[in-house]
């Protein structure tokens, strides 16, 4: 019903429906700020646009609408991914107005950039050509450089932005070079054609160079080791809502690219067992293993909680990269599901950090001492988010990791064990991660703080945290809520 209304409004452009709201949002936000005077008004309008977009998307998702408009696709996959990005945007926008870190003077530009970045993500999710994907990714990237820098009075933010922009620019160049190589050898930018090419042709050096350059370029987006170096600095320097946006949204977009480009390209040849396909699988397996190990091990050494969360994000990306080694639809579904749970748990953790910064608590783990006394709710929520990240049942992080590791072990009827070593590395990493998550829990619950004064964080933050918390628990005990869609989405890979 609702889907019909949307179709009747947007007509052929239904695939663009959710994006259109964002686009409108991005365009009008500066104007709204100008006329609205009060930044709360700006915030309300922004929130409205996000909600409109989100509702549209959810309606399309739940009604299984399929359409294509000028190469922009609309199917379960695209709507699902869009929903993920919109959830992130929603959470970020929700808290931006009360966060002391985000700019109020340039609220219009801030929201416009957020919308722009999200628009890019949605665009990427709906694309099936390297060209459009490239454009979408750049839209997001460039917006996020600016977003990071938008904490204008903070030297650390501008330093982070410089680093981010330079590494980002170089990655863009690498990507572009890689795409050009692949374009040259395969003669097309459409993923379908590329998949065909890979299936029916032998490995050539040019293709190899292109592939590696692309992996490196997009690896930067998901902060895969060794392209991860920017992430901790940027997450630390940026305003916490922005860090959250990067860690949950921008990184997920990178993973979406990995799924749409590399997985789509190689899944056929991997299933067929060609050596070329297997080589690529191994490459991804190695990257995955290194990424999660480095992420987790280095996270132990971090005294700053935002940096720690950054490294933990790197590790989580490593877990998700398992799906590119395994290359099965089952794995893809698990990966998408893990992205969702990761949004809530990592987002929740960042929200708490952001909220506490508003309340004057520092970013050091040692600043969290005695938090359980000062704010039992925040401490409990933080604990649940962290345990969920560590994969402790019955929280969402466990369930999604359960699916992920399950896919690494094999498929029904064939626990063949090719990637079982990856599963072992992953579980060892899980255990390592427990160490640093538990360190925070220990600080909050067990160590005595200097004061037992109660903490008050903005109500909006609490609302956002509760939303995350609810999903972390609900997705843990009832994953079918989303996992069904994740499985459906895998049908639209090619």
């Amino acid at each position: 019903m609702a889907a019909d209304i949307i179709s009747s409004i947007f007509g052929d452009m239904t695939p663009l429906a959710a994006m259109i709201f964002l686009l409108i949002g991005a365009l009008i936000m500066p104007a709204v700020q100008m006329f609205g005077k009060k930044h709360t008004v700006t915030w309300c309008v922004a929130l409205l646009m996000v909600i409109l977009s989100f509702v549209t998307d959810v309606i399309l998702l739940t009604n299984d609408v399929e359409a294509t408009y000028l190469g922009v696709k609309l199917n379960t996959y695209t709507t699902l991914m869009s929903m993920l990005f919109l959830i992130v945007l929603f959470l970020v926008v929700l808290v931006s107005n009360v966060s002391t870190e985000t700019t109020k003077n340039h609220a219009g530009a801030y929201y416009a950039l957020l919308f722009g970045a999200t628009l890019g993500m949605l665009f990427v999710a709906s694309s099936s050509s390297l060209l459009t994907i490239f454009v979408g990714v750049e839209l997001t990237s460039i917006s996020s450089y600016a977003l990071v820098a938008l904490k204008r009075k903070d030297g650390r933010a501008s330093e982070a932005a410089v680093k981010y922009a330079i590494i980002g620019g170089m990655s863009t160049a690498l990507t572009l070079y890689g795409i050009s190589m692949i374009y040259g050898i395969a003669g097309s930018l459409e993923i379908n054609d590329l998949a065909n090419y890979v299936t029916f042709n032998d490995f050539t050096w040019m293709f190899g160079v292109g592939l590696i350059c692309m992996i490196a370029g997009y690896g930067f987006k998901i902060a895969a080791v060794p392209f991860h170096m920017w992430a901790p600095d940027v997450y630390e320097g940026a305003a916490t809502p922005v860090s959250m946006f990067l860690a949950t949204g921008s990184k997920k977009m990178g993973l979406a690219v990995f799924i749409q480009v590399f997985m789509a390209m190689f899944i056929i040849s991997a299933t067929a067992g060609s050596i070329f396909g297997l080589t690529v699988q191994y490459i991804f397996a190695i990257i995955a293993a290194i990424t999660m190990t480095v992420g987790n091990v280095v996270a132990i050494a971090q005294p700053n909680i935002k940096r720690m969360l950054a490294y933990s994000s790197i590790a989580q990306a490593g877990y998700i990269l398992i799906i590119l080694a395994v290359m099965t639809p089952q794995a893809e579904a698990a990966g998408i599901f893990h992205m969702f749970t990761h949004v809530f748990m990592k987002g929740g953790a960042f929200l708490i950090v952001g909220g506490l910064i508003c309340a004057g608590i520092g970013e050091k783990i040692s600043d969290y001492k005695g938090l359980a006394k000062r704010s039992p709710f925040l401490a409990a929520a933080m604990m649940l988010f962290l345990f969920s990240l560590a994969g402790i049942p019955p929280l969402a992080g466990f369930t999604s990791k359960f699916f992920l590791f399950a896919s690494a072990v094999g498929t029904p009827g064939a626990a063949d064990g090719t990637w079982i070593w990856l599963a072992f590395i992953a579980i060892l990493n899980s255990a390592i991660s427990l160490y640093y998550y538990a360190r925070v829990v220990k600080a909050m619950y067990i160590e005595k703080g200097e004061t037992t004064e109660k903490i008050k964080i903005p109500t909006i933050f609490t609302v956002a945290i509760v939303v995350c918390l609810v999903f972390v628990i609900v997705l843990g005990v009832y994953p079918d809520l989303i996992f069904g869609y994740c499985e459906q989405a895998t049908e639209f890979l090619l």
Partner: protein
Amino acid sequence: MIAEFTWLIPFIPMMCFLMIGIFGRKTPEKGGYIAIAGALLSFLIALAISIEYLGSDEFANGIAIESSIRWFEIGDYTLNLGYYVDGLTCVMMLFSSFISTLIFIYSIGYMHDQGERKNRYYAEVSLFLTGMLGLIVSSNFLELFIFWEVMGLCSYLLIGFWSFRHDNGDEASANAASAAKKAFLVTRMGDVCLMGGLFIFLNLFHSLDYSAMFESVEAVAAANPGLFTLALCLMFGGVIGKSAQFPLHDWLPDAMAGPTTVSSLIHAATMVKAGVYLVARGFPLYVQDVNVMLFVAIIGGITAFIAATMALNNMNIKKVLAYSTISQLGYMILSLGAGGYLWALGYEELGALGFFAGCFHMMNHAFFKALLFMGSGSVIHGCGTEDMRLMGGLFKKMKITATTMLFGCLAIAGIPIFSGFWSKDLVIDTAMNAFNNGADGAAIWFLILWLLAVITAFMTAFYMFRMWFMTFMGEPRENAQHCHGESPKTMTTPLIILAGFALVSGLFMFFGLTDMLAFEGEAIDGVEHGIELFTNPFTYMTIILAILGIGIAYMMYVKKTMDPGKFNKNGESWLYIALTKRWWFPDLYNQISWKLGYGVAKGVNYIDRQIVDGTVNGLSSAVVGGGDVMSKVQTGHVQDYSSVVLFGVSVLSVLILVTFALLGGF
């Protein structure tokens, strides 16, 4: 059928234990009377059952009254719970409960000044009695084993009765604690062997019921000779532990740290008798293997001898008695071994004689050893020390004690008419029989054993009288001077009763005891063998040796015409030192237990901390350290980051080529 109530015999002391434990504190003597009543009641029931059994057809036909109920199953094997009454059971339960009753009565006097602790004492002795009586009436080896262990526990508790807050200070309590531990541990070693034997038996016989096992023993032994022998040896290991046989005899002298009544209980009525009883009970099994019987006899002979030697120069009145117990137990085991050996060779009558002699000696020993211990208890009670060097001349002050103890000494020394004479000479006779009839290689062993037994008889007479003389004759020394006279009636009455038994219990063999202690219906003729003793020249030899021993003791310690110092070079001869050091057995045990126990444990602990746990901790610190090191790569220079990216690209390029090549792509 009163035999149906056999289960009451252990059950009553058990109830007494619980009653005393729960509300004994509130009764007079802190539960002492409950304990006495329980023991007495058990005795009376045992008496009634014995009378009934002895008058029944079963007894006439040489079969046991047996009844059991299913307890539970281990795999395919059903374990039962029941009672088993035959002549041996009757004899055992009668003297155990009777002597225990007397000891409990005696305790009223002896433990009078112990205050609140009496409660614990009476509870524990009741449990002890439960253990012994339960062991006696058990219908299978597992049940026996359970009670066997219960006794082990009780001995632990009772030996350690003064292991804290000892009246004589801290060192004494430390001693008691260590002695209790040693007693339990050493007997436990035997118990573990016994348990091992039971595994094999259970597997071989598919049951541990006496009746079932005795029925099929021949077939089973023939089918699995190796395992059967092993099982017998292991089972005998239990005996060695419990009955303090060589080489596990060392705990018994230490066990003197407990109250004297407890020693009396352990040595006379319970505990150490259990080992002998186990051999007697398992006799049908033992006689299947002639070599095991030889082994048993040898252990018995060596024990008898070694223990007697160590008693020769001991100055502690209770320890002398302890050694004498070990020595006498050696006699019993020797007799059973030799008898079994003969039976196994087919000399059924001689074998039955050996069996009878062993059990008979056990009974006699129970009476006179209870007497001796309680007498020594009376002495200790009177003069407050156990060191004989501080006694002397007590005869005048404690006439009843001295006289009754004299009876005991005469009995143990083997002076005719007294009980010990009959049984001991039958034992020595059995050893001789085994020499005369034994197979070629083994016979010589029995000659040696016979010699050892005879020498032991001489030594026994000597050290017992040495003890008696040192205690009761001569000049009153230090403690004897403040001795406050004879003990109360509760203590002397049991002594007098037991003295009577020490005098006459040997004569039971002429009045039907032989029928009760008949092995497989092979009853020997008590009168015939009694008379035969006096036609045997060796009997006179042992009598003369015993008198000689008494004489030497008299010369040394009363007349002082012989100086003991001359023989031991004033305590410096190696033999004397060896004896005071107990042939270095305690040192050996200590070495073994420290090296094998604590030493290995230290090693294990070191490995555990350093290697096993060290690996875990090392891994974790490696990870944490790795984190520190790797985070240093994050220099903050954006161009370093770029370099890493480009480096990563190059590594990936190499990697993709190598992987492709390894997978066989080229």
